[in-house]
């Protein structure tokens, strides 16, 4: 089991390193969106999956991260709209942006602590609308509706941007912004994933799960429930903030419209489709939800019954949309453990076949790997 895990990890790592050398920018960009989504989804899964606090407002914290980064990193600008900024070194700005998202989460957590279930869900939905309102009114910070350009990240003189004057070429492949960000994304995702896994498998994870399953029991067993709930909310918001920073870096321009209702709901879809409560589930779900529509649009020409833009009939984007909706329904209906459940089942089957059934151990437990 652990050997196969190791092999898998090595294969994945190799693929991750090789990909930027072969795939073109738009694939890398899709990949980066998926990575950012995965980080955000891991955070949401800590909150909703592991602790049972439904949040439909995750996109708000992404926005805080994105705009926080831009504000901290940009220099003030005079112009039609004068824009503020602190002009901090970009890595500092990124860290501060993540912390800011955490603070935003902390501010909301007293509300979150009082509400449950659907009520909490819709209350967090309010964050989206309030966020949109704030973003469009706080023009000096956010740049209003058009957002503002994102200063590229620069770590020890290495810039995560296109540098036409001093092109970086590795193995004959020009490394532009996306290629460079790709590796940053991988590192961030890996770090975020491992951290969350540690949290879930350790003492905090058990406390969170018990709060989800039986809040009163958790308190009686010594878990400071309110503090934990707030803590998880802050942590999850920080994940959202980190995802926001990464998205800003990939976009190169922050746009308030992006952090809307659709985004928030798609994060919820990610963790449910992937499998509630686990890191791997969040990642699988994020990749699925963010890549599926792109893949469908891209290859829609190959799909039957699809007409070209401008013609009568079901267009590519519509078909993609419909298939996406159907996929959501089908996954939830037929894969109760989410995609992760499916993956685990397949792995189990493969392993069993490999182990060629030494007295196929009859166990009561379908080992629902809900916690890794």
């Amino acid at each position: 089991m652990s050997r196969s895990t190791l092999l898998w990890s090595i294969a994945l790592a190799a693929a991750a390193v090789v990909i930027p050398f072969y795939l073109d920018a738009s694939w890398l960009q899709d990949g980066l969106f998926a990575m950012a989504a995965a980080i955000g989804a891991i955070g949401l899964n800590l909150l909703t999956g592991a602790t049972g606090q439904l949040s439909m407002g995750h996109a708000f914290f992404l926005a805080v991260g994105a705009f926080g980064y831009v504000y901290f990193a940009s220099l003030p600008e005079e112009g039609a709209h004068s824009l503020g900024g602190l002009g901090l070194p970009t890595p500092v700005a990124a860290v501060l942006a993540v912390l800011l998202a955490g603070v935003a989460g902390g501010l909301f957590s007293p509300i979150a602590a009082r509400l449950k279930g659907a009520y909490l869900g819709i209350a967090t939905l309010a964050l989206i609308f309030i966020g949109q309102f704030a973003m469009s009114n706080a023009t000096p910070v956010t740049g209003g509706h058009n957002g503002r350009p994102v200063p590229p990240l620069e770590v020890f003189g290495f810039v995560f941007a296109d540098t036409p004057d001093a092109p970086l070429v590795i193995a004959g492949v020009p490394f532009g912004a996306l290629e460079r960000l790709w590796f940053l994304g991988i590192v961030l995702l890996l770090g975020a994933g491992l951290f969350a896994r540690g949290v879930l498998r350790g003492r905090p994870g058990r406390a969170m799960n018990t709060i989800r399953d039986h809040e009163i029991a958790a308190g009686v067993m010594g878990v400071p429930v309110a503090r934990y709930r707030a803590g998880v909310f802050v942590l999850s918001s920080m994940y959202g903030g980190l995802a926001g920073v990464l998205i800003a870096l990939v976009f190169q321009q922050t746009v308030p419209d992006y952090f809307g209702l659709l985004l928030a709901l798609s994060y919820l879809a990610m963790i449910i489709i992937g499998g509630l409560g686990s890191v791997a589930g969040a990642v699988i779900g994020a990749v699925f939800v963010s890549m599926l529509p792109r893949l469908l649009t891209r290859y829609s020409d190959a799909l039957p019954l699809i007409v070209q833009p401008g013609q009568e009939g079901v267009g590519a984007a519509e078909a993609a949309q419909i298939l996406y909706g159907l996929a959501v329904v089908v996954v939830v209906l037929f894969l109760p453990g989410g995609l992760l459940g499916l993956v685990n089942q397949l792995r189990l089957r493969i392993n069993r076949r490999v182990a060629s059934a030494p007295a196929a151990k009859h166990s009561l437990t379908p080992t629902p790997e809900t916690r890794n």
Partner: protein
Amino acid sequence: MITFIELLVNGISIGAVYALIALGFVVIFKATEVVNFAHASLLLVGGFIIAKTHEALGFWAALLLGLAGAAVLGALIEFLVIRRANVVNHSVLAIVTIGVDIVLTTELTRQIGTEVLALGDPWGSEVLHLGAINIPLARIAALLAASAVIAAFLLAFKYTNWGVAMRATAEDAETAALMGVRRGRVSMGAWAVAGALAALAALFMCIFPTPGLDRTVTATAMKAFPAAILGGLDSTTGALAGGLIIGVTESLVGGYQGELVFLGRGLGDVAPFLVMIIVLLIRPAGLFGTRELARV
């Protein structure tokens, strides 16, 4: 003062439409504990059928057909999707309804295309003048219809076992079955009713003073969320109260935007949510909702 009264009356009449939508949420929540994100597509279907058939059938027949069509669609969603989703976690079911909504809305907006469809209602752009106050006739109709429907639901929940069966099924389907409740029938019925309510709401949402049915109508359904929550997701009275509060809030904030400008422009959109949050802070299950109480 006249402006205030006019805004108030206007808010109440928009609120009646929100209340109808919110009531749809409430019915489904009562029966299946699902927050139904597919409600918008039920609205669209209802409105679309009315718009497409009113010329051939006349308005009233078209309305009936629209109610029936949306009800059938609601029942179908229940039968094909909700019933088959064997999940414990209700937020998972909410996501399923999002999937359903994406599919239906995409197809319906494709059908509607770029048109703005009139619904052929008998009230047109007529306005009732009460002194200095003007109220569109369509809005009065909406208010009357919503009041009648909500009163009917209150009575139905009180004097028939339907409500008990619904709540029992929602809370524990297995035990409800042991009481002889046919789960399928109860929840399918609820979805059908919610569909019909959506169609009725669609009618009032798409006639004067709004220009007609087009693809953007679904966005309005979102505004009924704070209404339903604020009143209490499982309360009929709550749907009415929530709808009215949201309608009036929106109308007043919109109308006094000039005076409220220090709070930022475009407040009308967030105000309902702010009101909702304030109410929830005081009453975590809404004004009339059942409080979640646990004991050990």
